[in-house]
């Protein structure tokens, strides 16, 4: 049982990462994603990995201890509107909350340029029509006290009415249910009694957070993808088990880590964004092992650019996310995406007579012009081909030949309208997309009080390593790491299995000063008991359980809260003082000196317990780095245009397959890996460290 495997099903490719625990080596493979039946791509990627190991799939699986899957199946069902027929139960008087969307629905999830054109905006189409929403007589207040008791007899009629309309999933979201779940749970029992096979989703279980709209959306999405995800989880698991896997397939989640199939099927919403999150998770676990505690993770694919932050070894988290133009309450590792990728289209904006790049994308079909599949507008990839950065004969390791003439024609056509040369235009496309990506990183760092200069940028995905040298420079970042060389292209697959099994337990607890340490202790004790029961039921011994406490605090009457870590012990009053001091320190770091107002008092909002069942650790080998820097293997030379020096120069090209610790490169040069290309810009240099990371020394651009 020597292998640990992660499979990340992305929009274009399904990536597979295999970790050999005895050799401590990593192998990656890529297969095309098969949207109609994602399990196909899943097993194809396993097949390719097995072939590289000279094994049959069943013997690979028979030797596998853990297999983790990150999947876009749930997200796709939501985006393509192929989910279940859902009914919704809400508190009486609030049945229109889903449509009212707090008055913000018209512009939610739109880019600035979209939302400012009033006539072009509208609310998204709701997932549930009005006649499938039933209002329940019951009411709880903000303290969890019952104001109106649940009328079960009427509720039963409501549920039967919905069933007669053919629902195959039911979402239940009542006001303040996260403070007092009784009424929701009673309705769930009722529904399950009437229709035992119905998929039922309760807001107090899916999204126990304040804010009924976001909670309703989360609960509804969970119900919407519930039946379909149940089938997906079963089919993948059964097929893997049949092929020889000794344990159940685990499923990666947006809170980091993974869970067994039963839990993935019960709370499928948490598989949303599990791929990009796994990339951050991988960086958070493996980064510190390689000496990087503060990491900006950047994943540039064909359509999107995903950014995450790891600070002192811990990923940032958030509680809201917008999916398909609906905002919901869902705790997750913070990854933000913008429409910027290799397929992003460059065009002339007639209003300002300037060039814009993205967010519109040529996607995989028709793809960039150089794919020769009918793309008619130039993209970022086309620009990189024109500049000579991407080798048209070695794209995806030579699997796809690129049409240079088509790319040149498209870029030149755009340049003509702007009065720019072919190269200026191509370089301009890259500069604009790089500045947008840098802007997004600013949003995730500076807006949250982090200085990007204190971080290393991890560049992964197909496009990350190609552009990181530019966007990192915009931010003043000194080092870019292409982690573990070619493994960077399947980094998210690797990230799925490094976080362990993770469960979150939440408890809303509203306390004002003087804060009662006893109340916090009691609440955490209860949560820990729950957590230990869950983990031991999954077969974890005490020694392999890790329980981490956080507490959400804020200044009274203020709106923004912070989650800060708490020690796992019985708290006394002096610990409360320490906790408040920590809160203030972090607050000041985030928002600046004087931004907090101690006199207003501090209040407790919520407790969270993260329960981790530890899986066998991925231990990396750090090879010796020779004192003398070695020359890497030169593959050839070609003319590459570098805008910093405004001309083409003969540029050395190195074979990324043959990197070894101690290799040193000077820019301008190009390093070609099978699944990505790393340009070293003029003035930049790079080295391969003992782990096989390619570290780029960014250097500030000398202008003005």
């Amino acid at each position, binding site marked *: 049982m020597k292998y640990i495997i992660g499979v990340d099903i992305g929009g274009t490719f399904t990536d597979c990462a295999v970790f050999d625990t005895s050799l401590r080596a990593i192998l990656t493979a890529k297969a095309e994603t098969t949207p109609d039946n994602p399990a196909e791509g899943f097993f194809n990627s396993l097949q390719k990995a097995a072939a590289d190991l000279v094994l049959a799939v069943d013997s690979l699986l028979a030797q596998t201890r853990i297999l983790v899957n990150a999947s876009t199946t749930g997200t796709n069902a939501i985006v393509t509107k192929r989910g279940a027929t859902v009914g919704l139960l809400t508190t009486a008087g609030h049945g229109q909350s889903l449509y*009212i969307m707090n008055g913000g629905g018209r512009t939610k999830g739109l880019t600035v340029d979209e939302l400012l054109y*009033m*006539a072009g905006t509208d*609310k998204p189409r709701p997932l549930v029509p009005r006649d499938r929403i039933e209002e329940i007589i019951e*009411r709880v207040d903000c303290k969890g006290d019952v104001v109106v008791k649940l009328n079960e007899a009427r509720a039963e009629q409501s549920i039967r009415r919905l069933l007669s309309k053919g629902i195959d999933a039911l979402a239940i979201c009542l006001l303040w249910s996260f403070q007092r779940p009784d009424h929701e749970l009673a309705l769930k029992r009722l529904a399950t009694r009437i229709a035992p096979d119905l998929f039922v989703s309760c807001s107090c279980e899916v999204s126990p957070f304040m*804010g009924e709209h*976001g909670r309703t959306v989360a609960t509804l999405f969970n119900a919407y993808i519930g039946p379909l995800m149940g089938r997906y989880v079963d089919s993948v698991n059964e097929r893997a088990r049949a092929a020889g896997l000794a344990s159940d397939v685990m499923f990666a989640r947006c809170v980091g880590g993974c869970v067994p199939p039963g839990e993935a099927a019960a709370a499928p919403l948490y598989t949303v964004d599990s791929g990009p999150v796994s990339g951050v998770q991988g960086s958070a676990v493996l980064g510190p092992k390689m000496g990087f505690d503060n990491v900006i993770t950047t994943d540039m694919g064909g359509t999107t650019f995903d950014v995450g932050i790891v600070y002192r070894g811990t990923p940032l988290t958030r509680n809201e996310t917008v999916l398909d133009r609906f905002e919901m309450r869902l705790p997750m590792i913070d990854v933000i995406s913008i429409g910027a990728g290799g397929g992003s289209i460059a065009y002339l904006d007639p209003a300002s007579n*300037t060039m814009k790049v993205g967010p519109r994308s040529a996607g995989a079909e028709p793809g960039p012009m150089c794919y020769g599949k009918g793309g008619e507008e130039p993209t970022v990839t086309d620009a990189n081909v024109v500049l000579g950065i991407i080798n048209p004969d070695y794209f995806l390791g030579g699997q796809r030949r690129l049409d240079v003439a088509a790319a040149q024609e498209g870029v030149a056509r755009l340049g003509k309208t702007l009065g720019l040369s072919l190269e200026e235009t191509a370089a301009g496309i890259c500069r604009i997309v790089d500045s947008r990506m840098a802007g997004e990183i600013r949003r995730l760092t500076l807006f949250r009080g982090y200085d990007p200069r204190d971080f290393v940028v991890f560049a992964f995905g197909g496009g990350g390593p190609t552009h990181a040298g530019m966007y990192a420079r915009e931010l003043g970042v000194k080092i870019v790491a292409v982690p573990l060389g070619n493994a960077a292209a399947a980094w998210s697959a690797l990230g799925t299995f490094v976080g362990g099994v993770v469960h979150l337990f939440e408890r809303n607890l509203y306390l004002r000063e003087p804060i009662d340490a006893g109340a916090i202790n009691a609440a955490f004790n209860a949560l820990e008991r729950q957590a230990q029961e869950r983990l031991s039921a999954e077969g974890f011994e005490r020694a392999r359980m890790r329980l981490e406490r956080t507490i959400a605090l804020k200044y009274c009457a203020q709106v923004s809260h912070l989650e800060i870590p708490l020690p796992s012990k019985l708290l006394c009053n002096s610990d409360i003082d320490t906790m408040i001091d920590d809160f203030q320190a972090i607050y000041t770091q985030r928002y600046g000196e004087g931004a907090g107002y101690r006199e*207003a008092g501090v209040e407790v909002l919520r407790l969270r317990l993260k329960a981790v069942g530890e899986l066998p650790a991925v231990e990396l080998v750090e090879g010796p780095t020779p004192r003398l820097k070695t020359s890497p293997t030169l593959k050839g030379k070609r003319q590459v245009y570098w805008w910093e020096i405004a001309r083409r120069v003969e540029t050395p090209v190195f074979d990324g397959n043959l990197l070894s610790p101690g290799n040193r490169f000077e820019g301008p040069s190009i390093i070609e890996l099978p699944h990505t290309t790393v340009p070293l810009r003029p003035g930049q240099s790079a080295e391969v460290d003992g782990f096989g990371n390619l570290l780029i020394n960014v250097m500030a651009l000398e202008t003005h």
Partner: protein
Amino acid sequence: MEEQTSALSFPIEASKETAPHAVDSTATSRLDPKLWDGFTLSYIQREKLSLSPKVKLHIETASEIDPITFEVLRNALWILNEEHADTIRKVGASPVATFANDLNTSVQTETGEAVVFAPYVQYFAGVADLVVQWTLENRGGNPGIEDGDIFFQNDPLVGISHQMDVQTFAPVFVDGAIFCWVFGSVHVRDIGGSEPSSFCVEAKDVYGEATPVPPIKLVERGRLRIDVEQMLRRHSRIPGLLALDLRSQIAGIHAAVNRAKELVARYGAPTVKAAMRKIINDASTATSRRLSRIPDGTWQDVVYLGGLTKGDRRAHRLAMSMAKIGDQLVFSNEGTDPQFGSCNCSYGAWRAAIAASMSALLAWDQRYCIGGVLKHAQFQPIPGTINCIDRSGAVSNLLAISSSVAMSGTVIAKMLSCDQELQRNVISAKGSSVWTSFYGIDQWRQPYATVSLDECAMGTGAFSFRDGIDQGGGSTAPRLEAGDCEVWEQSTPILYLFRRDSLGYGHGKYRGGRGLVVGWVGRGTEVNNVSAASVPLSLPGANGLWGGHSGQAGLFMDAQGCGIASLMASGNLPGSYEELAQLFKLRFVPPKSTGIHLLEDDVWVMDIGASGGYGDPIKRDPEKVHEDVYAGLSIEQARDIYGVVLTENQVDATKTQARRRQLRRDRIASANKPPQPVSLQGVNGGEKFLFRIAEELKVVEMGGEKYIACNDCGHYISPADGNYKLGCGRIDGTLQDIDPFLFGNTEEELEDRMAYRSYVCPACGVLFENELARADEPPFWDVRLNLR
């Protein structure tokens, strides 16, 4: 290889360098700047700023900027400004700012021209140029403007909507000179005045409201001035929260100033300034190009406001006219009644409201760059009026601003109706403002005061091609939100019995968007009061467009000690307005009411109203009307307003056709004869079509003369330069004819006699336009073409 240069580097206007202190010259120049100084009367923009020699402006601008660097800088400036707003939202104490985004931030040039605004409340930022210019003129010499200073101000005469929308702004210094300004405004919960939360319903003048503070240094060379902070805190009932709000603004300013300095260090001051100027120039070019598509003329809108103080029974007239000459728009408020009560606004706010409408309708693709848009606006304010106060005018209740946004939106929409392409932007209005203020002791035993934000979920007006968006929010505040009921119940001792679609909407070919109706009871408190602010039902202030009917004002109802507490304790929950109305006797609450109890046995209902409709209702798709009936329209309204007959819950096509023909005949029969009919009778197709001016009106040419004609039947209505209404049949009715419940009885509510007048084609009976006017007024001349 062929030598090629960046041929398309953008030349940047050099005028700023030859006349560094010049700002746009406008029609306001005929106003005496000594009088319009922000102290006696509102501050108006100057032809040339009068600056102390101590003020050093950093004016150097690169003569050109390449398109790539420009796009990079445009993004960077946008992100910088967003970071400013984001910081305020996160640090601030005010849920009004953080949840409802009742704030804005901007970057202004060294002389105050607006470059970028965050996508929040647009009329906040639309006064920023005036405030910066006032500060340059009045603070430059004494006490001086220095690096590290942050100014505070909330004086309406300098330029602010009302005292609660406090502004903080700071110069960004480069090499010892002012390079640009960063500017923020946030609605704070209480800054003084006679009423908690500072909406001073009873104020007769500004002295009954929170004391305005003209620009003063809150931070001096990087150090917070404790004396100034304490003075501001002393004004507020909740000084701690105000202090927190001020800190959020300081934090936001710090972030923005630092980022601006970094940009200058990276790209050089002349290049960054060139990008700023080009952003403004691009918006100006786009605005100019669009205006050039439209014939010259003057468009007008009139709205009546009422209930401006407790017991006010008069209808107060607001007028806005907009003359279009080439690519300039000249706005005037002539015909507006004198300032009254606390619902007025200053010149700066009126201008900002207009600028907000202009940018949304003419520069939507320029990220609402008001600096460029304002190059095409001139203003002719009449002081002492509801929308241009003199020194004493009270402003805390805002109504004049929301009305000015709506009215400027209407006159621009009417103008855009002349162009086929721009017609898509035409949208009807939602003008009035309805809100509830709360104060008392909350369920956590703390004193509190706040204002409801449900009104942010207003419906958009009807478009020229589709219905208004229910709860779509205002066009000039695209990210304003009402917040979750739970969030409000956590911080306020109330329960939402329900939150649903408002009870009505403006009827039309395309209907207006619905707002909300909410029902509240008190919870967990023994001391809890509400105050109401709205307008009389008979003066809704939400005009429809081109035959679409008026939207609703919104309303308040209550039931005190009604027994709902025991009802709920026994397991009942009235979950809609209709259920409440069946159970309890609900009382209409007058539009301005204060100090009403809201405890556990009291009920408070607020409907925030709905927007006006677009086009003649009898042209609405009958299937849509069928859907409307499903959503609450009565069968009678379907028949009498829309001419749609439903049989067995299906549209009866034959009867509907007959009913619609009958409605046209009824209209012609009940209309007064046109006072000035055109003798020549037109026949569709026999003449040359020039352009449309309204949904059912067009301009045609016949025998060398131009006429306004009915678009439906071709009938000639009036000469092209005349008032079409004089060639129409006029039906004098009341709003209650449309809906007796939602529009209220004029005679009960008002001293003034009002008429709701519909103008129809005397030949075919199609409805051109409606207007709400004093009964003795001549028809409004809303479209006055100048085709020379």
